[in-house]
């Protein structure tokens, strides 16, 4: 009985404290309700340990757009991941601080929550592990996580946001990684004409789009499968080779000769906005890509069997190419790119 009274008394003290004590803050940070498209592949398991929250996403977006992440405060994530281009780049290869050239074409950031492997070669399997890479890479932002923290740790907006997003933990490296990942998880594109047709909404394909869809199903879908339009596999499809001797494709990660110059099959969603194409922007237009596949690709020991079995090419007539491009444009999500 004594104990109960004591407990009650303590509780009372605390409750009364809460009322007048401005030091104690209760953080109300609800999870963001994301529209998860029903036919999309399963979520990356990391999503469940870093579920996007209201302030996590807000903080991530702020960091994503903040040039303080770069050593000389000139570029942010958004400099190479531009919304109008489905958060991809319009340059062939990434351009970092002081005009330094990267190795590859910055990929779009869309539907990341449903990906199991990230980047062209799958060197990262968790989105939370990715933000540090551009921050420290010499050819990108050339900074360090402590340098970034040093720049933002006195900023009142950041202090408030970090506390709201991560329950008063303040500004931490993990908070930076996790919030940027949360923001990226929230970038879901599933509102294209293709989706509307699939969902039985009013729209229908034009004749060219429908014919293009048929070509797609015949000649493209084995790699560009699922509702993400990628099977997330790594393949060497004999595209022109990157002259930079740092490049080895997926083999740089796995050490397997069979993965030499293999790259992750890219999603085709929003492809209209993500030119140039290829791992280092080899192709300026979709026409160029299709012409190349039609004419014939580079021979390689580990060239994808689908190409090997077809004389190293994907034969396409001009009409098929035009129709295919019409279909690919139905994968454009205007709302997603802010049009």
């Amino acid at each position, binding site marked *: 009985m004594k104990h109960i009274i004591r407990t009650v008394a303590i509780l009372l003290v605390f409750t009364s404290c809460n009322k007048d004590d401005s030091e104690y803050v209760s953080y109300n940070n609800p999870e963001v309700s994301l529209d998860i498209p029903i036919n999309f592949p399963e979520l990356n398991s990391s999503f469940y340990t870093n579920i996007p929250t209201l302030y996590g996403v807000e903080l991530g977006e702020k960091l994503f757009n903040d040039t303080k992440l770069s050593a000389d405060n000139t570029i942010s994530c958004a400099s190479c991941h531009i919304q109008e281009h489905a958060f991809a780049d319009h340059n062939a290869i990434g351009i970092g601080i002081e005009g330094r050239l990267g190795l590859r074409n910055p990929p779009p950031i869309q539907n990341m929550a449903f990906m199991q492997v990230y980047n062209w070669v799958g060197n990262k399997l968790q989105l939370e*592990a990715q933000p540090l890479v551009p921050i420290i*890479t010499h050819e990108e932002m050339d900074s360090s*996580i402590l340098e970034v923290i040093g720049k933002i740790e006195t900023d009142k907006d950041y202090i408030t946001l970090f506390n709201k997003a991560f329950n008063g933990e303040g500004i931490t490296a993990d908070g930076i990684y996790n919030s940027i990942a949360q923001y990226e998880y929230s970038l879901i594109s599933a509102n294209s004409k293709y989706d509307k047709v699939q969902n039985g909404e009013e729209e229908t394909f034009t004749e060219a789009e429908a014919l293009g869809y048929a070509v797609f199903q015949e000649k493209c879908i084995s790699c560009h499968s699922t509702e993400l339009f990628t099977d997330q596999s790594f393949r060497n499809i004999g595209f022109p*080779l990157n002259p930079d*001797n740092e490049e080895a494709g997926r083999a740089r990660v*796995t*050490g397997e*000769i069979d993965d030499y110059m293999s790259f992750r099959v890219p999603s085709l969603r929003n492809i209209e906005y993500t030119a140039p194409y290829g791992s280092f922007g080899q192709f300026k237009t979709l026409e160029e890509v299709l012409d190349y596949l039609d004419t014939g690709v580079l021979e390689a020991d580990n060239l994808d069997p689908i190409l090997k079995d077809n004389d190293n090419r994907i034969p396409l007539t001009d009409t098929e190419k035009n129709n295919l491009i019409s279909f690919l444009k139905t994968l454009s999500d205007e709302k997603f790119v802010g049009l």
Partner: protein
Amino acid sequence: MKNLKNYLLIAIIPLAIMSCSDDDIPVANNVILEFNNTFEGTTIVLGDETDTDATVNTSDAGQVHHFSELKYVISNIRLIKEDGTEIPYNVNDLDNGATIVNQSKTETLEYVLSDIPTANYSQIKFGLGVKSELNTLDQVSFPNFYDAAGENDTEMHWEWGTGYRFTKIEGFYDTDNKELSFHSGSTVEGTVDDESTYTQGVDAYRDITLNLTTAAIVGENAPTIKIEADFDYLLSGNSYTITLVTTSDITNNATPSAHTATEMTKFVDNIGGNGSDDITGMFSITAVEN
């Protein structure tokens, strides 16, 4: 009376301790690791493309080569007593237990292990590179090692893999001085031999075990252990006889500037051992000075 006894005891104990510490050995002392980077015993002199002072080596495949840059990470150091007890030296603390040996910086050729318990040691183990659980470029936890590795003249961050470079060798080969560039580092996610954690990648960390030529007697003196790293092993090691080629045909021998993990592993096995029947790689003990 009993009390008096106790007082006496109390008075005697400090005396006993004092007399001990006067002429007796300390409980711990330093051990100095001294690295000598050689080509078959000849200490390497670095040099640019046409530098005639540079130490030139000839590989088993007959290729002349010399280095302009030579760096590697030593970590996870353990000293083993004659009775078999292993004394780990800050093995989970890169700031205080790891170092970058850089041939162009004399001061890095010596690494002082402090507070090693007084004993006779017969073996040393260390890692070439950083074990995977610490290999995360974690600047928050290990700011000093991170900074030392990242300095502009060191460049031992492997950014895209968010790990450290374990070895960085730049140089020239063949009589026309073609570029030789070898970087090693891990891409492993999880533990290679553990199916439940392993997802992908190559572990370039190598654990080295070396028997000391004579016991290192730590106590009154701080012994120096002289370690030779014979970089002749890079191209002419126990695992592979490598012929450097410039073509992009990576199935035959090695293109020193093609940075695939496949290529990398050959060099890593040569200098760091293959982890099974070769646990010394290019390293050997040349002397222990007590």
